[in-house]
């Protein structure tokens, strides 16, 4: 068992459950996406992009599930991933059976997740059959579902009903069979759309069309957990409620052995009622060895009136035990969080920005008014001022969250991972207070997870190996975040074995990539970002499939970021993710030069002081130097760099600001220091182009644009 220390960071006892919700949402999205892609997959002409996409979805779900310890989900998705991996490598030709089994597996994963989300209550759906079928397909077999025509995977078992819950717990818990008559309608085709509803809404249930005795009427047999009201509301999209008649249908026919659950218990509606009425919902269901519960409680049928009259009473209660079903689970996330498109938040921020400017303008214009005459107006404006500020603060806070939210996901994951691999790993985090835009945080989490896993799996060596190499037994993985030169840099460092140039080049040749021994290290490291590239000898469920880095690169590129690798064989490796500041908020120091205002990133400002004319000395071709406490530093006159027109010749730059970037210090000469403020960094390049020595722009309180200086570029400039 490896030890995982948390030297910095929020310690080891992190309650991972706070991230469950995020995972459930992500996994849900991934599964939806996968389903969509599977459905769109052209079997004959499936291209790599599509197969890679589907594979990535499975991989992400697996990764997350493993991180949070949902082993059942991880196992199933691992199997899916293996099959998809072979498809992706063209070792197998995709066929309909595979798509079927993958879709069913996705459904099963959803059910498993829903169960976890619902607090692990209720029946554990078994996935043994799906796993078997996938394995069969993976080895080239047919993997046919035992009940080929079944819409939802059903177990091959003829017997005990509780197992029938397998893939679709929704169907077993509190299910009602209904006969729905729609009509008379002028255009009975309208009613057919109802069938589509059942197809489109997951968890709604099953619908079958029955033959109707009248031409203008459609009859459907429906199995659902929804209440009559819910169904009517749904159907109202297509046909008016008056035309719909819902009634409880006869006890199920023999053909549905899978649902024998209800048959065994004296008429299904009653059975459902009796256990729904039972106070601890779900609880009695889990240990159910047979039907002892129902058989042994003779009072049950009678307690709820019995017979087909019961359903109306069932409805409200029936929902409770279905907690683990999608229907029940859906209610939770709605209450906790809302997912909103980033663009909407951006729009909100922009609008608030405008509001603040308008408010400032009103305040300015109203200053001259006589308070005695315009008292009401002025009170109103004061209120407006306060409300606007509060509003701005709240809106801004929507976006910014500290990196610790992301970082604290890792200690637990690393601990488990290290334990599994038999390695000893220390985890160190730095700069977790660095605030990052929420949009970026969400998108950077997955790539970081991959990187940290990679470090642990491939980077850090086994304890014995480390000792042999003269290192301490325990490896260290460091995760740090910082603002640097107009970017946010997140680094994943390990002191493991580093990358092997030779191995990578060999692997690249094996895969037919165009490489040569003369390639620079940086170019060689970039090779590991190719899809499917892995030098790991064994494919584990942790990593080694070579999917990680390709996803990492893709995700980061989508954020306009870059990934750099630094590695020394035997000493470790460092992956730096550099994200642009777009959308980020930065502490800035505004300085005046001539009539213009520029913003310096406060993080790079060391000190500022007024300069005496004789403190500056020149060297060689006119470069200026100033002596600051026994240290000579190059002087950069912003007035010259930015060609600031000087109207007031009386004024001159006599304030020096020492800035530090990339490890060097320079002195910037400015006219005045205007103040410090938080600025929202805007991208200049979205509508214009890159401006030298400028990292972005921001909007000042008066609505004017101010440029943000790129201190890194200024420092580099002074060197040449």
């Amino acid at each position, binding site marked *: 068992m490896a030890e995982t220390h948390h030297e910095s960071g929020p310690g080891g006892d992190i309650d991972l459950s706070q991230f469950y919700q995020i995972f459930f949402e992500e996994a849900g999205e991934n599964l939806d996406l996968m389903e969509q892609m599977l459905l769109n997959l052209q079997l004959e002409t499936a291209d790599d992009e599509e197969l890679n996409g589907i594979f990535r979805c499975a991989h992400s779900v697996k990764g997350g599930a493993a991180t949070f310890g949902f082993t059942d989900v991880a196992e199933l998705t691992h199997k899916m991933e293996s099959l998809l991996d072979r498809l992706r490598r063209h070792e197998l030709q995709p066929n309909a059976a595979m798509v079927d089994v993958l879709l069913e597996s996705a459904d099963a994963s959803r059910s498993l997740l829903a169960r976890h989300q619902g607090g692990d209550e209720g029946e554990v759906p078994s996935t043994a059959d799906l796993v078997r079928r996938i394995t069969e397909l993976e080895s080239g077999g047919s993997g046919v579902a035992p009940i080929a025509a079944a819409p939802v995977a059903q177990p091959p078992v003829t017997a005990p009903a509780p197992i029938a819950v397998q893939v679709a717990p929704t169907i077993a818990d509190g299910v009602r069979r209904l006969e729905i008559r729609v009509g008379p309608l002028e255009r009975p085709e309208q009613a057919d759309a109802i069938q589509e509803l059942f197809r489109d809404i997951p968890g709604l249930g099953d619908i079958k069309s029955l033959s109707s005795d009248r031409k203008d009427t459609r009859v459907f047999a429906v199995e659902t957990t929804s209440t009559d009201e819910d169904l009517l509301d749904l159907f109202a999209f297509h046909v008016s409620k008056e035309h719909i008649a819902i009634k409880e249908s006869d006890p199920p026919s023999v053909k549905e052995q899978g649902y024998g659950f209800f048959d065994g218990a004296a008429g299904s509606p009653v059975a459902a009622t009796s256990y729904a009425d039972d106070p601890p919902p779900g609880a009695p269901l889990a240990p159910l060895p047979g039907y002892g519960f129902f058989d042994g409680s003779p009072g049950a049928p009678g307690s709820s009136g019995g017979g087909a009259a019961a359903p109306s009473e069932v409805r409200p209660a029936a929902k409770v035990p279905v907690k683990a079903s999608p229907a029940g689970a859906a209610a939770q996330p709605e209450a906790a969080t809302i997912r909103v498109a980033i663009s909407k938040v*951006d729009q909100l*921020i*922009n*609008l608030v*920005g*405008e509001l603040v400017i308008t408010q400032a303008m009103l305040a300015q214009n109203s200053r001259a008014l006589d308070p005695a005459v315009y008292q009401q107006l002025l009170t109103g404006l004061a209120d407006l001022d306060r409300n606007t500020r509060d509003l701005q603060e709240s809106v801004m806070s929507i976006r910014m969250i500290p990196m610790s939210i992301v970082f604290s996901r890792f200690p637990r994951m690393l601990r488990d991972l290290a334990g599994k691999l038999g390695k000893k790993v220390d985890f160190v985090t730095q700069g977790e207070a660095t605030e990052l835009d929420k949009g970026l945080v969400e998108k950077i989490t997955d790539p970081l997870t991959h990187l940290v896993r990679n470090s642990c799996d491939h980077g850090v060596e086994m304890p014995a190996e480390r000792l042999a190499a003269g290192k301490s037994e325990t490896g260290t993985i460091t995760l740090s975040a910082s603002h640097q030169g107009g970017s946010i840099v997140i680094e994943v460092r390990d002191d493991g074995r580093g990358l092997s140039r030779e191995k990578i080049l060999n692997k690249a040749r094996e895969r037919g990539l165009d490489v040569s021994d003369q390639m620079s290290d940086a170019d060689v490291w970039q090779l590991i970002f190719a899809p499917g590239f892995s030098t790991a000898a064994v494919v584990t469920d942790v990593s080694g499939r070579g999917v990680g880095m390709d996803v990492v690169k893709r995700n980061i590129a989508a954020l306009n970021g870059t990934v750099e690798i630094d590695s020394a064989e035997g000493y470790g490796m460092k992956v730096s993710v550099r994200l642009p500041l777009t959308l980020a908020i930065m502490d800035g120091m505004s300085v005046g030069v001539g009539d*213009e205002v520029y913003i310096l990133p406060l993080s790079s400002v060391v000190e500022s002081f007024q300069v005496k004319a004789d403190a500056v000395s020149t060297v060689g071709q006119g470069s200026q130097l100033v002596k600051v406490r026994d240290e000579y530093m190059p002087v950069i006159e912003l007035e010259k*760099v*930015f*060609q*600031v027109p000087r109207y007031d010749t009386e004024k001159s730059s006599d304030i020096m600001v020492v800035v530090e970037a990339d490890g060097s210090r320079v002195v910037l000469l400015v006219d005045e220091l205007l103040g410090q403020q938080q600025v929202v960094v*805007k*991208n*200049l*390049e*979205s*509508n*214009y*182009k*890159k*401006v*030298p*020595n*400028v990292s972005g*722009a921001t*909007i000042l309180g008066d*609505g*004017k*644009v*101010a*440029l943000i200086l790129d201190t890194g570029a200024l420092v580099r400039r002074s060197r040449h």
Partner: protein
Amino acid sequence: MGAMEKIDDQISSGAREYLTFRLDQEEYGIDILKVQEIRGYEPPTRVANAPDFLKGVVNLRGTIVPIVDMRLKFNCEKAEYNAFTVVIILNLRSRIVGIVVDSVSDVMELPPESIKPAPDIDSVIDSGSVVGLGSLGDRMLILVDIERLMSAPDMGLVSDSD
């Protein structure tokens, strides 16, 4: 429905609507569909090392938009900034750019038969950017492919790498 039919009509007849503006004594027309909005002129924030016709950048409801003075670009004799100076905000291939003009005249519909090809003339405008000359009675409209004009390398609006 009315608007749709109108557009359909235009497509079938080939007539397009142009926003016309004045630069000094010349009258120009640009495709109305490229115009996002028209604003008054406000002094932009100067950007260092930019050509003189690039007046700088302004804040357009939270978006940083570069402002090009067409009068300087086209070497007009004078470029004054007064209460009538107008900025036309263009939306070109998801980029937003503002152009300063002397005044905006109106929006007119030009059928294809009233658009004549532009003769080869020596001009500050890249001749490829002039779509044609529209004649409206005794007025002459210089019809410009504004998208092409603004994305030309000499405008310096886009990075070389783009």
